[in-house]
């Protein structure tokens, strides 16, 4: 299980402050949904957590490990932000085995874990004899999500996981994420523009505006949807 603690985290792009979060804690086993308009700083926030960007100020601690000072947190973290994570000249199987190997998983273990995703893959991902670069955007998204989860990370970070997916795959991934959280107790962070999906699976939702978390919404009783619809002016 993983805890994330944010301390005075700031990131500027020129004049624009993309992320500005004073103190924020994400607890063990929580599913946190991150919502906000385009340019609110969701992806930048994720990149800062994953040490893919240099913070101008402050720090991120994952289980008391400062993420830019040690790489130890990488052992129990899984993430998929965008296609830049995929090695696209591998077939999906090769990619899963490659990732598995990085976390000490044998081929058989990877194969066994892939069975959990059979419905999600819908017979279109493995066994296709195609390199990842030749898959559709939706199937690339599936490959990225699975690769982030294959080693059962204690911390899972997914940026816009519902993008490019067909409606049934969106529904399946929601269930997979919920089950994954219940079974492994892992902490999950997802960002999304889909308010229905976010409120469906996230008991806690952070609303980001101009890089700041302006609301920390308790959604344990599914009450956040109305508040979010009002904020986003959805009729």
């Amino acid at each position, binding site marked *: 299980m993983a805890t994330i603690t944010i301390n005075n985290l700031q990131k500027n792009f020129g004049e624009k402050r993309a992320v500005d979060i004073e103190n924020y804690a994400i607890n063990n086993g929580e599913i946190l949904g991150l919502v906000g308009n385009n340019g609110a700083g969701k992806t930048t926030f994720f990149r800062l957590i994953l040490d893919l*960007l240099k913070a101008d100020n402050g720090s991120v601690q994952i289980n008391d490990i400062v993420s830019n000072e040690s790489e130890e947190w990488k052992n129990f973290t899984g993430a998929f932000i965008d296609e830049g994570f995929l*090695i*696209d000249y591998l077939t999906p199987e090769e990619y899963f085995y490659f990732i598995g190997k990085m976390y000490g998983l044998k081929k058989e273990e990877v194969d066994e874990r892939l069975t959990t995703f059979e419905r999600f893959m819908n017979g279109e991902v493995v066994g296709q004899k195609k390199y990842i670069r030749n898959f559709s955007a939706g199937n690339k998204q599936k490959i990225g999500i699975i690769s982030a989860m294959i080693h059962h990370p204690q911390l899972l970070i997914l940026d816009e996981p519902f993008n490019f997916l067909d409606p049934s795959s969106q529904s399946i991934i929601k269930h997979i994420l919920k089950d994954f959280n219940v079974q492994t107790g892992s902490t999950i962070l997802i960002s999304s523009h889909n308010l229905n999906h976010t409120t469906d699976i996230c008991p806690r939702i952070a609303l980001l505006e101009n890089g700041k978390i302006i609301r920390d919404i308790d959604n344990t009783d599914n009450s956040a949807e109305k508040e979010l619809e009002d904020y986003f002016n959805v009729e």
Partner: protein
Amino acid sequence: MLLQELRKHAKLAAKRHPMFEKNKFGKFYLYFMTIFWSGYLIFFGILFGFGFAEDFPTMEPYHIMNKGIFILLALDFLFRFIFQKTPTQEIKPYLLLPVKKNKLLNFLLLKSAVSTYNAIWLFMIVPFAFITTLRLFGITGLVTYCLGFYLLMILNNYWYLICRTLINEKTYYVLIPIIFYGLLGLAEFTLGNPVSTFTMNLGESFIKHNPLGFLGVLIVILGLGWINRAIMLKNLYAELAKTEDTKVKHVSEYKFLERYGEVGEYFRLELKLLFRNKRSKSMFRMGCFLIIMLTAMLFTPTYEGAFGKSFVGIYNFAILGILMLTQVMSFEGNYLDGLMSRKESIYNLLRAKYYFYSFAMIVPFILMIPAMVMGKISFLMAVSYGFFTTGFIYFIVLQLAVYNNKTTPLNESLIGRQSTGTGFQSLISGLSFGIPLLVNNFLRIALGETISLWILLVIGLGFTFTSNLWIMNIYKRFMKRRYKNMEGFRDTK
């Protein structure tokens, strides 16, 4: 109107490229090299102007120069492989606009014709013409002579583009220029100098402003331009369709590498990177081709001297590594975020690369066995150069892992973005080519061949057996620069 707009976009693309602002060293290097080459060419222009007059008193100096036009064009052709990039204009964004494709391609060709690069030889020709033609043919002769030369460079530019486009598609098209220049050389030396006689007359027709000379060159330029356009149009559809590997018949597994843990996994990744992507595959093939060429050179009388042997010997081992490893991390830039989210993956990746290119030394070594048996080079020389490569040369080239921060597209070819590399890349590449030869020959002259080879062997073994240490050092320095590099790779994807 359209041309102006596209030209504006092309200029903005270069000016607003993320690396343009950031790469101060690259900019300095570019300006320095421009001044250096210009000065060099002016020097040669003056030298030839006076030198030819002294050495060939029975002929006019411009006759000698004109006889050598063919050599000049062949040199220019070779230099273009180093300096000139294939068209950089992104054509795809314009394809859905109501603009005819032919018009767009014409623009690309026109742009390359008016490129300032084509004028670089004028730094040599103008002072030469000033010294040799002005007194006989006046200012008109000087101007038309230079103009004729300039047109020949445009012609050469189109010839180069045809070859480069085809070679980018399939490496074996490299045979076209080889056969072409080979046949011309053969004709020149066996049929009574028809090529140099022709170019001498052509040059004279420029000086005497004979319209037939200019007309002939213009017709050839138009013809080559037309061929270029046809090839580019064909490639454009190939690029858009991109159907070549949607279904892979046989997926190579390289299962024997499974037992070597993470490094074995990255070794396997390196193999797949090389053989499944157009650009890396072409570069690798080019490297192998050069190894074969260099080995063949060992059997020619030109390389029988000590310098020739050391030149061929060292580069035979080093060429593949220098060619591929100067790009270190640039291919990985395409998926670096994924690699960086895993612990120490870059360290293992660098080790795997190092082992791969060290094992690749076996190929030139085996190819050189006949030369060793025939006594062309000694066994000690081969072993010494081999280890000097895996030790010292790779040590230098792999430093680029710390500094490279520009993504090289894996599969784009002619009608896409062109990866130009950074100035620092060019410098390290140059150093890794120059230093070994310099060190080797300095030692050879100072201490004799055998001792120098032993010294190189000791240096090579030292660096080879401590490779884990210095690769760890490279990894640590890479991690210190990681944010800058990741930003660069992301911006140039």
